[in-house]
C-alpha cells in the first residue's frame, strides 16, 4: 500500500511543499489527487470534489514529473492544444501563448519542434502548459530537476507570481533548498502517512542546539526530551533540536541546575535538510 490515511490541508494562495524519501508515496498521492490513479479504498477529494469531476480539473494545472509531450509539435502548437483541451477560448490563447513562452524563456525557440528540445527546455514548456488556463491549483512534480541555476530561479519567480495572483501551488521536489526558499508550508510523508508538517514562515523558530559541557548525567540528558528531540551525547558534546527559541533559557537553567559545567551553548537555525533528516531519520534513501 503506497498511501494510507493521507489527509492534507492546503490553504488557498500558498505554496505547499510535499516532502518524503523515495517510495514515500508522493507521486502516488499526486496521481490520486489528479485522478490518474484510484485509491484501493476510500476516496480522494480535491477542491471538495472527486478528481474525476471534469469541471474541477478545469481549475487544476499539472506539470508531470516525466514531462513527456507530443514532440512533433512546436511550443506554440503544444500550448494551443493544451489550452483548447482546458477550454480556453481561441482569442484568449492568441495573447496568452506568446506571453507564456516569453515567461519561460523559450521565445527564440517557439517555432522549433519539441523533439529538438533539451530536458530543461521541455520542462520549461511543460510548466507553461500547466499555466495556460490560469488554474487555481497547480501541481508541479519536480519542476526544476532538469534546469540550470538560472532556470531554477525563473521557476521560483513564476511559482511566486502564481501565488501572488491567488493560485495555490503544490510542489513536489527533491531539491530541499528549492523548497526551503519557495514554500510557505511543507509536509513530510513517509510510507504513505503524514509524519509532520512545518509552517516555513515560522520555521526560524525551530533550532538545533549544540552544547559543550562537562558533568552531564544520564538523568540530566533524559530530561531534555521535555523540550527537544533527537537528543545526542558524544562525550562533552550534546546536541538536540527544539521547535521554539522560547525554551532555550529553560534548557540552559536545567543544565546548570543539574550540575553540568556549560562551556558553550550555541543555538543554530535549522535548515530544511536538517529538519528532514531529523524527521525521517538517516539512511532512508532520500
Amino acid at each position, binding site marked *: 500500500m503506497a498511501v494510507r490515511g493521507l489527509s492534507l490541508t492546503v490553504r488557498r494562495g500558498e505554496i505547499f511543499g510535499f516532502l518524503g524519501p523515495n517510495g514515500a508515496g508522493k507521486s502516488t498521492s499526486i*496521481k490520486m489527487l*489528479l*485522478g*490518474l*490513479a*484510484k485509491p484501493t479504498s476510500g476516496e480522494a477529494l480535491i477542491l471538495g470534489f472527486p478528481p474525476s469531476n*471534469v*469541471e474541477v*480539473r*478545469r481549475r*487544476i494545472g*499539472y*506539470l*508531470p*514529473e*516525466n*514531462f*513527456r*509531450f*507530443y514532440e*512533433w*509539435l512546436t511550443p506554440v502548437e503544444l500550448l494551443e*492544444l*493544451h489550452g*483548447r*483541451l*482546458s*477550454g480556453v477560448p481561441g482569442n484568449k490563447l492568441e495573447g496568452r501563448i506568446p506571453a507564456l513562452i516569453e515567461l519561460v524563456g523559450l521565445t527564440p525557440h517557439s517555432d522549433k519542434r519539441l523533439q529538438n528540445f533539451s530536458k530543461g527546455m521541455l520542462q520549461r514548456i*511543460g510548466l507553461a*502548459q500547466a499555466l495556460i488556463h490560469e488554474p487555481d491549483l497547480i501541481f508541479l512534480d519536480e519542476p526544476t530537476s532538469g534546469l540550470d541555476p538560472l532556470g531554477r530561479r525563473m521557476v521560483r519567480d513564476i511559482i511566486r507570481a502564481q501565488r501572488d495572483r491567488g493560485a495555490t501551488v503544490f510542489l513536489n521536489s527533491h531539491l530541499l533548498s528549492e523548497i526551503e526558499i519557495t514554500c510557505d508550508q511543507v509536509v513530510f510523508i513517509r510510507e504513505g502517512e503524514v509524519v509532520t508538517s512545518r509552517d516555513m514562515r515560522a520555521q526560524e523558530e525551530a533550532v538545533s542546539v549544540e552544547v559543550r559541557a562537562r558533568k552531564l548525567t544520564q538523568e540530566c540528558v533524559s530530561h531534555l526530551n521535555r523540550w527537544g528531540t533527537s537528543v545526542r551525547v558524544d562525550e562533552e558534546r550534546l546536541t538536540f533540536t527544539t521547535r521554539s527559541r522560547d525554551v532555550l533559557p529553560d534548557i540552559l537553567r536545567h543544565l546548570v541546575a543539574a550540575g553540568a559545567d556549560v562551556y558553550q551553548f550555541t543555538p543554530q537555525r535549522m535548515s530544511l535538510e536538517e529538519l528532514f533528516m531529523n524527521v525521517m531519520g538517516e539512511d532512508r534513501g532520500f
Partner: protein
Amino acid sequence: MGVWIMAGITFREAARKKILLTALFAGFAFLLVFGIGLHIQVGDFRTSSVPPFLRYQIVSAMLMVGLYTVDLLAVVMTTLTSVDTIAGEITSGTIHAIATKPLARWQILLGKWLGFVAMVAVYVSLMFGATVAEGYWIGGVMAQHPLSGALLIFLECIIALSVTFMFGTWFSTLTSGVIVLGLLGAAFMGGWLEQMSGFTEGSRLAMVGIVSSLVMPSEAVWRRAAFDMESPLAGSLQFSPFADVSIPSMTMIAYASIYLVITLGIAVYHFRERDL
C-alpha cells in the same frame, strides 16, 4: 469538443510524422506492380487466342488479387500505426498531461480512435479507388459491388483498430502488436480452413473456421467483401481467398459490427478504470 480536439491531433500526428504518406508511398509500390502486371497481361491477350469471356474472367481475378492485397495492407497498416497510441503514451507518461485536462477519459480514447478512423478512411479510399481504377482503365474490368466491398474492407480495418486499442489499454506496445497480429493470423488461417471444409464437407474443420471468425471476424468480413465484388468465375476458384465455397452471411457482418462496438466499449471501460 474534447473528442474532436483529440481526433484532430491524432490525425495531425499521422500527417506530421508522415505515417499516412509513408503508408501511401508503400502502397504506391504495390499499385505500380499491379498496374504493370495488368498492362502486361492485357498486352499478352492481344497476341494470344484466349477467348474474350475468359480474358475478362482472368483480369477480374487479377483485380480481386489486387483488392485482397489492398485489404491485407490496410489491416496491417491500421494495426501497426495505431498500436503505440494508447500503450505507448501510457508507458512514456505522455498521457499524464492530457488525462489531467478537463475531459473524460472516454473522450481521449474515442477521439484518438476517430482520428485513426479518419486516417484509415483516407488510406482505404485512395488504395481501393486506385486499384479499382487501374483494373478499369488498364484491364477494362470493374468490381461487381465496389462500394460494398470498400465499406467492408473499411469495417475490417476498424475492427482491427478497435481490437488494437483494447489490448493497448492493457499491455505494452510490443505485446499488443504481437497479440493483434496473432489474432489476425489466426483469423486468416481459420478462413482458409473454412474454405477447405466446404471443399471436403468436413464439419469439424468448418467449426474451427467459424470459431476463429467469432474470436476475430476480420477474415470473415473480407470473404464477404470478396463475395460481393468478385465475378462468378473468380468466386468459383476453390482454395482462393475469394472462393464462394463458404460465404459469410449478413448475420456474420452484423456480428462483426457488434464485435467492433464491444471491443471499443471494453477499451473505453478499461482505459477509464485503469491507473495511468
